[in-house]
């Protein structure tokens, strides 16, 4: 291999280029300066966030839309530590990311010098893998491995921590073309015997059901799942992470399951005889509405063997890449079946969640979501934060090829705006909307500056109810209405905040105002913010 003499800092940028990285999200500091100095010489677009955690969330949004590992960068100590919540959030939702952090000089490690933090140690529970790059000669191999590990198998964040002196060291650099990690060989195809058993189980099933999870958004998972459901006439329900994999108006689709799911989906889960889990982790919030049953055959297909059987007893485990396994299943299917009686039964369980108009000066949040939904182009990306706003969005936004991004596993407030920035950077042609509460908006509003500075035209919806609504709802029901530390009194007018950033904004306090504002928001080619007046005691669970 032909090598070139260069500093590790320059080699790092060469590695990023070789991986096809054109955009990175970060926040500099002394310990990562050699790398930033080399970034100066490249065409890589660096998006300066206003807090490191948001660089991590933005990379997550970028990765989920581009389908490839995205890069977040921070300096040593506080910079790296600020990233941890974003790393953990990505880990829980299997989002591929490569995190690069600066570290103090190699010989100072362990001496508690200025801005030293053991970031590989502290992030260990939340990374797929991590490297403390001490030997400059390992640079190329470590980057190659990091991108490969992050983006293959069950995807996830990989951290590379690089001491300052290593960044300045000179090496003979060449980016490896091949990779071989003997201890890491993720499976692709499902075991033939298990595929056969799954087909037999499906043929015998009278009430089969597919549960679509977030894992379907890798490769061709989602489209193959749709074909599989169609060929075998199987009804589909979705987890929150799987929203969008099945178009909402598909007649075989029965909605989102779980604690905040809809009646037809939870009925389906509790009455099916064969449950096919596709890239779904079977999280506790998803199966909370599921009753224990002995007469159920569970087929669980997942890339991560550790997820199979962890939370739900499984009869037929299939470990493999969903694109590959669904291909195998479709190929192995015999005569097309049909399940009209079962579908009729489920159709009878569909219920239209009625919207009661809010009192004057407010809008019912579901009604607002539906008005927004009607105006959204089919391929839009909706990023929901955490809380009541997330539940309203998940239940009322419809999907016709668009995406729904949210922090499903970790439930991290403050995810929506930075993730929307990342998603928009990855797909500038799509409408990207962040929906958040007034609590979570105040955790991330500094990122409006990032959007403006880098011409990233996201749209922001703030559902203002003057409360940490979801927690308030919990206290109302479970704590005898003793509301503690959930009032957001003292908060600003959010349209004014937007204006301070030079962002056009509208206040919505009626259905009519919503229609007008949503039109403005969609037609604007600049960032736009809508502040929605939601009645203070509006609930998600009625």
């Amino acid at each position, binding site marked *: 291999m032909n090598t070139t003499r260069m500093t590790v800092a320059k080699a790092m940028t060469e590695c990023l280029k070789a991986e096809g990285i054109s955009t990175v999200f970060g926040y500099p500091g002394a310990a990562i300066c050699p790398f930033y100095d080399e970034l100066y010489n490249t065409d890589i677009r660096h998006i300066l966030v206003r807090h490191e955690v948001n660089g991590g969330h933005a990379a997550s949004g970028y990765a989920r839309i581009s389908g490839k590992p995205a890069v977040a960068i921070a300096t040593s100590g506080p910079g790296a530590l600020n990233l941890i919540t974003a790393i953990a959030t990505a880990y829980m939702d299997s989002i591929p990311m490569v995190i690069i952090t600066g570290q103090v000089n190699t010989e100072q490690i362990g001496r508690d010098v200025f801005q030293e933090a053991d970031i*590989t*140690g502290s992030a*260990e*529970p939340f990374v*797929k*893998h991590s490297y*403390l790059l*001490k030997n400059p000669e390992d640079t190329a191999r470590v980057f190659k491995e990091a991108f490969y*590990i992050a983006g293959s198998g*069950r995807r996830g964040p990989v951290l590379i921590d690089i001491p300052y002196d290593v960044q300045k060291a000179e090496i003979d650099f060449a980016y490896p073309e091949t990779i071989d*990690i*003997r*201890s*890491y060989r993720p499976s692709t195809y499902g075991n033939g015997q298990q595929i056969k058993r799954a087909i037999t189980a499906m043929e015998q099933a009278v009430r089969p059901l597919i549960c679509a999870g977030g894992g379907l958004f890798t490769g061709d998972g989602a489209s193959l799942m749709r074909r599989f459901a169609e060929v075998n006439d199987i009804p589909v329900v979705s987890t929150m992470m799987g929203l969008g994999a099945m178009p909402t108006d598909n007649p075989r689709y029965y909605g989102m399951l779980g604690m905040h799911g809809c009646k037809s989906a939870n009925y389906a889960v509790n009455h099916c005889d064969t449950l096919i889990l596709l890239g779904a982790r079977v999280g506790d919030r998803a199966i909370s509405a599921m009753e224990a049953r002995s007469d159920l055959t569970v087929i669980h297909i997942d890339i*991560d*063997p*550790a997820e199979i*059987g*962890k939370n739900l007893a499984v009869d037929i485990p299939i470990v493999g890449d969903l694109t590959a396994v669904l291909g195998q299943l479709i190929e192995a299917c015999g005569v097309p079946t049909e399940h009209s009686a079962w579908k009729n039964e489920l159709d009878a369980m569909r219920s239209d969640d009625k919207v009661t108009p809010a009192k004057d000066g407010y809008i019912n949040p579901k009604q607002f979501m539906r008005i927004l939904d009607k105006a959204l182009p089919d391929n839009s990306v909706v990023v929901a934060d955490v809380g009541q706003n997330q539940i309203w969005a998940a239940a009322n936004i419809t999907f016709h090829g668009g995406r729904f991004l949210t922090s499903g596993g970790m439930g991290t407030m403050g995810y929506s705006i930075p993730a929307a920035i990342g998603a928009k950077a990855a797909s500038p042609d799509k409408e990207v909307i962040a929906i958040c509460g007034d609590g979570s908006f105040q955790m991330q509003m500094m990122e409006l500056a990032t959007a403006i500075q880098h011409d990233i035209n996201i749209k922001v919806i703030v559902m203002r109810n003057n409360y940490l609504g979801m927690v308030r709802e919990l206290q109302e029901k479970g704590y005898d209405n003793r509301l503690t530390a959930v009032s957001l009194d003292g908060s600003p007018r959010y349209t004014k905040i937007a204006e301070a950033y030079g962002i056009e904004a509208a206040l919505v306090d009626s259905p009519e105002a919503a229609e007008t504002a949503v039109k403005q928001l969609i037609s604007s080619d600049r960032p736009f913010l809508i502040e929605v007046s939601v009645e203070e005691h509006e609930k998600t669970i009625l």
Partner: protein
Amino acid sequence: MKHTISVLVENNAGVLARIAGLFARRGFNIDSLAVGVTDDERVSRITIVADGSDYTLEQIEKQLNKLIDVIKVKTLKNDTSISRELVLIKVGCSSRQRAEIMSIAEIAHAKISDISNTTITLELSDSKDNLANYEELLRPYGIKEIVRTGTIAIQKGEAAVRV
């Protein structure tokens, strides 16, 4: 139930911390842990004795396999493997007691590793249960210190846990 798990890992910095951390945060209990290099110096073997149900054992195996540095994980069955611990026991021993203790040592196939006017140190390698027996036999003389390694184990016959 006790399980003996033989784990081959890349001999990289931080591997042990990763494995110990995994056990701690997933709530798996480690009874003993022994680490050493294999015939290939880039590969270490970690032998873990852990306590838990079959469900826990399955989770331990799967979670260990997810660590990138872990090359192979194998749970050894009691009836098809041999397990050993090494123990150094220092007991109080006057010159009058020496013969008595040395006869125990002989039965136990223990080596006398050190001897002084007031103490004797025995070196024993055996299964955990047998070691416990000998410990009881020596207790009346006054045990001054016990140092033991974690359990190591190997399969009987041709079977081997190799890269």
